[in-house]
């Protein structure tokens, strides 16, 4: 079994077993569309290190030179910390590439799956649920 399959399967069964209970805040599909991934490269313009979700605000230069501001949502501070991401690592001014899933309402809001820093190292914080392309559960 390939790594990707193993991760996907482990994520699914992990999700089945673990499923953070009621305090996990809103259900992902009420707000985001896992079939609408977006990869954004920019500079952190503001970090909201708050709960129940951390928000990374990213200034992304568009081809025409205009700057689009994206609000990128992630896990609670404690889970991000456990995932190897400190407040310092995503502070204002940090260049980042972020893979995220877009909000259903079409605003510049998305839920982060993967952070990649300019030195090439990356951290993925995706804890199961439906993978892109899979049917709804």
């Amino acid at each position: 079994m390939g790594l990707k399959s193993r991760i996907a399967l482990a994520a699914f069964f992990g999700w089945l077993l673990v499923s953070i209970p009621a305090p996990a805040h809103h259900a992902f599909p009420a707000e985001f569309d896992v079939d609408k991934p977006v990869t954004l490269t920019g500079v952190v313009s503001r970090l909201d290190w708050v709960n129940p979700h951390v928000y990374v605000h990213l200034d992304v230069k568009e081809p025409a030179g205009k700057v689009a501001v994206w609000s990128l949502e992630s896990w609670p501070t404690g889970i991000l910390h456990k995932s190897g991401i400190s407040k310092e690592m995503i502070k204002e001014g940090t260049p980042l590439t972020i893979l995220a899933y877009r909000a259903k309402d079409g605003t510049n809001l998305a839920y982060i799956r993967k952070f990649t820093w300019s030195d090439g190292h990356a951290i993925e914080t995706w804890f199961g649920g439906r993978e892109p392309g899979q049917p709804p559960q």
Partner: protein
Amino acid sequence: MGSGSFDGKLIWPIAVLVVASCLTPRPVAAQKAHTEVADASPSHGPSAVPTPRSIDGHPDFTGLWWAYRGVNLDVEQVGNTRVNLQPTSRAPVSEDPENNLSVNTRIYDSVAARRANPDKPSYKPEVASKVARLDRLEAKLDPAMHCQLPGIVRSGPPQQIVQGPGVVVFLYDSPDASYDAFRVIPTDGHPHRTAEQTNGLTPSYMGDSIGHWEGDTLIVDTVDFNGQVWLGIDGWFTSTKLHVTERLRREGETLHYQATVEDPEVLTKPWVMPERTLHLNHTDSRIEQEEPPCMEMDTAHVVTPEHH
């Protein structure tokens, strides 16, 4: 994200085996993480440790009983990428997964399975439509989703207890760090307070609690709730007549916790929740007490009614 559940204990070993096989061979980092978790787990057999007593002769509940430190993540390193995986066990280090019977914190693999759990409050027929409406609009209306305290019994047992003569303090640390809460519970005969005595701070989400001893069992009686407390995620609202009775008993390094919910305004009968057993956590010295603030910013973007 995701809601999971299971009915029946047989799924546990099967699912654990499946997860284990999915991740085999595991990188050293993941193996190490598991070893640490295993080392941190208490022995769940009968406790040979005597129950400690406070200077007034009552059992001493002081200790850290449930440190839900978010989740214990599994980690794989793939080239330059650290991949954090959903953990293979949700149970906090000091609670038996098999004993995690509370409908609010039990593990489910679907919303339907959770709803099928018979452990739930029984609502009067005349408020059934209100429960259904709140359930449907949970993502927008659930107080706990908007940085409000979850109230009792949704907060579960306290994660840490500090006890002195005539007083017990329950401390709470939420899994998603959206709240830190405490309850100071007199056990010296003080009655419930009036709103005048609390300077208008009651009624409230956590209510007003007093305790007394029946033998070695601590009974905590809580009233004066604000009518904004939900008992669970499925629209289980309450009135200001909510009355919660908690029973705590310590045997060595095991804490038995049971809660009964009464709300004659909206429930047909008391909701007697199953007892949970918690184990003393020797790993941590205290719960977290000052976490980043809770700021709800999602509700405006919720467009469809799915909820956990």
